[in-house]
């Protein structure tokens, strides 16, 4: 049997099938396959459980390698999940939906233009005024007589679900800052790689032309007739839930991904801080909610916005997409009025029905809702849909009655279902029906609205799902062409995307992330090497506590403690696992890897997607370690993690030699010098007898990845002087202090703010001079149990390297003071001023 046939057969058995009232996307009421599935010839239908199991594995791996994540409030981002079986619609059924979506976008644009302009809908009562004025998304700062934007809606998204008859109905409109296009594109990219034959032969619409159209639409959104407008994507930052989606869009369109702090308003123009100068920004694709976009005129506590943005918008000096205040359309209370609004504004009947909705501000509707609380979902007009889900009917009734205009009641659609891969554990039941919603995207291109021929399918977990934040599964939507000759997206004339690299390489925030990319990757590598060395010693000697090897191990563990703190445990394996897996332990590999991921997420659009393969590798290694209790798994996983981290060097080698590249290396060499000094400070400044010292020095050489060189140069004769020479003063050993300081000088010199005499450069010069003046023979000198000269030397190096790091931040990464509210400063009666100069005297 094949998966789809099993599925069709299973639907007729009540125990296996889903909800009998649900429309099934694959199997008709009579048990036969629906048209698009018949049209797919035998190929899709013949997919076996084996095929899908393989596809599912490949998908998980591909998504991890691409670093595709979805954020969850208060938690680490989880992996994005994609089901291997696409949702397939044929041209005929899509065509109907497409017309409805285009009309809806046009209608919503007209509503938006009216609500921020003439307000005829409110004056004539076509929409009750309280529906709009009581909605948090109504931005009065752009509802002024002096400002009018005829086409505020450029990109909208619509969430759809099917009713029991299989008709698509609108569940919600997404106009504020619609997300998901990047995920949809990524889904397509992965699925086309994993099921190449099916993809090629099915004759579906490719998505690429839509992205080209989006790029062109954004450029044309610029005011006036500009030859080469500057477009940026404004992100709330890499901790946003949909950070991946934002970075994907920016990178696919070739527009810089910026954050509020990268932009300033000057004389009513929006400008981007580029090293040492400001460059004008003409169009902003906004992924920050309106309310957070301008601390001057919108939420004053926002750190995500740009002070003065609203004024720039009102003066028509920058175009924000979608316009500020577009979120007022994300209002379920508008839904019941749209049919009449469509007649009034477009002169057409509304083609696409919404989910039946009642606004409680209307007395009759309110009664209807309160009479049927069991079957309706009650929600605030500007709150999340499930906000009141936990409340009992009495509490809901009380809330509605206290502020009726703020609530709606909505029918819950049965939704449709489609086969979803559940794993090959139960033969014959590998796929099960699951409910789904569809997010579509509509773009204003030229003078018309064009829906993306495709979309993002979200699978709805059953209501009793254990974890509400468990990553949702998604599906790709394939819309088949009527005729293979049809152009993709029906857009023959669109220019293909030219892959222009975006040029944020010199925004201070980006340089900062690059700096930490270098530092955290080095920390990751060094901790892994240290764990590998310690684990090897432990393997050999843990059962012989008095052996020199075990004493060496104890010394090496002090280096671990110096970098990652001391854990109160005798169980070495537990300690190693903690060093590799514990995200919360400062100094652990996992902690540094998190820092690395954070830094990279902030500059995702700057880097080759290959960079995320490193995380795919480390995550699989971490998973193997979590699921295998054997001690040898520590070394195995750490080794694989090291492979992953080292692969970053390959990506770096292929990176364009811009300021960012130098910044990564600056961080990398600074951290390597620091890590080396810490390692040596913990291990080599005390004498413990010849045999133990030899164990320690050998381990240090291994941890500092210099054992092979040492072996070649000193023929295996390990003594302190030789090791110090190799690790401190050798100009050719890429692991030596000398080498890394010299590299620091080179990369510093390449940065635009360097003058030859800037503080970081002076500090490196001093470090190099001090190192040159230092004799290894002096450092080796013994004073009792210790080597006081070496100790003092390393302490001094550590202090100066730390200072250097601070100086680099100050000179190269400074963004100037953060904006704050005028009334936010503590007010004092007077300052202590200097009577002679009138200047404020500082404490």
């Amino acid at each position, binding site marked *: 049997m094949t998966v789809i046939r099993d599925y069709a057969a299973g639907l007729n058995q009540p125990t296996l099938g889903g909800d009998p009232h649900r429309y099934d996307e694959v199997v008709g009421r009579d048990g036969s396959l629906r048209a698009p599935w018949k049209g797919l010839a035998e190929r899709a239908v013949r997919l076996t459980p084996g095929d899908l199991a393989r596809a599912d594995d490949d998908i998980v791996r591909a998504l991890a390698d691409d670093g595709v994540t979805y954020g969850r409030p208060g938690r680490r981002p989880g992996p994005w999940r994609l089901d291997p079986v696409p949702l397939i619609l044929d041209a005929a059924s899509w065509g109907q939906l497409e017309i409805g979506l285009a009309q809806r976008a046009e209608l919503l644009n007209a509503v938006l233009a009216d609500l921020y302009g003439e307000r005829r809908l409110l*004056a004539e009562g076509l929409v009750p005024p309280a529906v709009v004025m009581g909605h948090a998304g109504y931005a009065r700062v752009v509802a002024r007589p002096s400002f009018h934007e005829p086409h505020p809606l450029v990109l909208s998204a619509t969430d759809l679900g099917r009713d029991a008859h299989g008709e698509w109905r609108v569940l919600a409109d997404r106009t504020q800052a619609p997300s998901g296009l990047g995920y949809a594109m990524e889904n397509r990219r992965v699925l086309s790689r994993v099921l190449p034959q099916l993809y090629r032969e099915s004759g579906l619409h490719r998505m690429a032309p839509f992205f080209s159209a989006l790029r062109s639409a954004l450029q044309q959104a610029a005011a006036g007739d500009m030859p080469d407008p500057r477009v940026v994507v404004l992100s709330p930052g890499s901790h946003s839930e949909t950070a991946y989606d934002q970075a994907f869009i920016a990178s696919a369109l070739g527009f810089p991904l910026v954050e509020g702090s990268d932009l300033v308003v000057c004389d009513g123009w929006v400008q981007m801080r580029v090293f040492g100068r400001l460059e004008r920004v003409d169009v902003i694709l906004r992924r920050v909610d309106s309310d957070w976009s301008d601390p*001057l005129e919108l939420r004053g506590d926002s750190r995500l916005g740009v002070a003065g943005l609203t004024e720039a918008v009102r003066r028509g000096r920058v175009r924000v997409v979608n316009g500020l205040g577009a979120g007022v359309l994300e209002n379920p209370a508008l839904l019941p009025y749209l049919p009449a609004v469509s007649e009034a504004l477009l002169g057409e009947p509304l083609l696409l029905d919404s989910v039946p909705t009642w606004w409680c501000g209307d007395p009759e509707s309110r009664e209807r809702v309160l009479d049927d609380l069991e079957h309706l979902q009650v929600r605030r007009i500007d709150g999340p849909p499930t906000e009141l889900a936990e409340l009992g009917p009495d509490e809901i009734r009380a809330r509605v009655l206290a502020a009726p205009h703020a609530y709606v009641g909505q029918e819950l659609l049965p939704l449709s279902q489609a086969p979803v891969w559940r794993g090959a554990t139960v033969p014959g039941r590998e796929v099960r029906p699951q409910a789904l919603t569809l997010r579509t995207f509509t773009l204003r291109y030229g003078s018309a609205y064009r829906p993306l021929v495709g979309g993002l399918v979200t699978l709805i977990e059953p209501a009793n799902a254990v974890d509400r934040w468990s990553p949702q599964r998604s599906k790709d939507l394939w819309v088949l062409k009527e005729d293979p000759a049809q152009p993709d997206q029906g857009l023959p004339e669109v220019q293909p995307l030219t892959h222009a690299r975006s040029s944020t390489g010199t925004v201070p925030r980006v340089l900062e992330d690059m700096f930490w990319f270098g530092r955290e990757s080095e920390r990751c590598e060094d901790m892994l090497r240290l764990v590998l060395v310690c684990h090897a010693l432990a393997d050999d000697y843990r059962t012989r506590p008095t052996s020199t090897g075990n004493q060496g191990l104890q010394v090496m563990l002090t280096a671990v403690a110096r970098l990652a703190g001391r854990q109160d445990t005798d169980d070495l394996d537990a300690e190693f696992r903690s060093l590799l897996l514990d995200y919360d332990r400062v100094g652990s590999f996992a902690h540094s890897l998190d820092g690395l991921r954070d830094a990279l997420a902030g500059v995702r659009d700057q880097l080759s997607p290959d960079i995320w393969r490193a995380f795919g590798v480390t995550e699989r290694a971490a998973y193997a370690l979590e699921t295998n209790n054997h001690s040898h798994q520590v070394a195995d996983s750490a080794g694989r993690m090291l492979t992953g981290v080292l692969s970053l060097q390959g990506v770096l080698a292929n990176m364009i030699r811009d300021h960012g590249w130098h910044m990564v290396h600056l961080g990398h060499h600074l951290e390597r010098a620091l890590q080396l000094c810490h390692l040596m400070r913990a291990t080599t400044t005390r004498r413990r007898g010849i045999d133990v010292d030899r164990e320690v020095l050998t381990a240090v050489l291994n941890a500092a990845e210099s054992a092979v060189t040492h072996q070649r140069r000193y023929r295996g004769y390990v003594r302190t002087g030789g090791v110090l020479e190799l690790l401190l003063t050798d100009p050719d050993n890429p692991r030596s202090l000398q080498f890394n300081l010299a590299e620091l000088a080179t990369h510093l010199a390449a940065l635009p703010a360097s003058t030859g005499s800037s503080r970081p450069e002076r500090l490196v010069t001093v470090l190099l001079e001090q190192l040159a003046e230092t004799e290894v023979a002096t450092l080796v000198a013994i004073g009792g149990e210790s080597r006081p000269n070496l100790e003092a030397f390393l302490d001094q190096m550590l202090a100066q390297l730390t200072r250097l790091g601070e100086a680099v931040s100050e000179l190269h990464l400074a963004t100037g003071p953060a*904006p704050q509210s005028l009334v936010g400063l503590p007010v004092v009666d007077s300052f202590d001023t200097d009577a002679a100069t009138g200047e*404020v005297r500082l404490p």
Partner: protein
Amino acid sequence: MKYAVRHTTTYTYDKPVSDSLGVAHLRPRVLPWQTVEDYEVQVAPAPNDLREDLDHYGNHVTYFQLTEPHQRLVVEGRGTVEVLTPVHAEETLVTPWERLRPLVQTAAPLAWTATDVALPSPLVDQVPGAHDYATASLRPGRPVGEAVTDLMHRIHADFEYDDTATTVTSTIAHVLEARAGVCQDFAHLLLACLRGHGLAARYVSGYLSTDPPPGRERVVGADASHAWVEVWLGGDDWLALDPTNDQWAGDRYVTVAWGRDYGDVPPLKGVIFTEARKSTMQVAVDVAPWALQG
């Protein structure tokens, strides 16, 4: 009455400010009972960008930015304003208050615009305490003029003027609890009371001309910004009530701007880029009878 109005705000900072953006609601509105002459908003140091506009509520609003590093910012509005006492038709004032609820009488003339101030707003949330407090005044069928004036009397009697009792961020619940506050708090409280019963009422920011204490000279700059409330009487008619001074606003009241609450119309707000940790702020308001000029 005719007044020379001056409103000066001065900030100084302990370290330079490199960039300062501001929005000021200073220029008084032109109204059927109020004319404004030669009004000017000036910013020092001279801003590199300054633009006047009308906001969503038709108030004058000034946007400015100065990118010259400075340690002292002065924003001043000055001009001449002539005010008459607004008159209300008796038949309007005797309308039962229940007939003036825009969420109920949706078809009444201009009810749709009044809806905006019949709903809760960011600084005037709907609290049961305010609703309950107002019930004693808003008795069924009572003429609106009488009912809302009674409510104003009671707030004036029950709440103490105390500028240490509240802060700019105090909520309605806090004011109800403290039974004290300043003009802004009383205005917000009265709004919450009226809106809690479905009436439409807006926050008014402006000045009240005061007489010097008997036997004393006028002290220039000793006046203050003031705030009161206007309640909707239907159409374009609004009754101005000052709960702080227990009177209808007359020709001593200069109306600058109105909105849903203070947040829509602060005289001055801004964002600054600075390493400064502290500031001093002085506000000097002077509403001098025209006759005393020169």
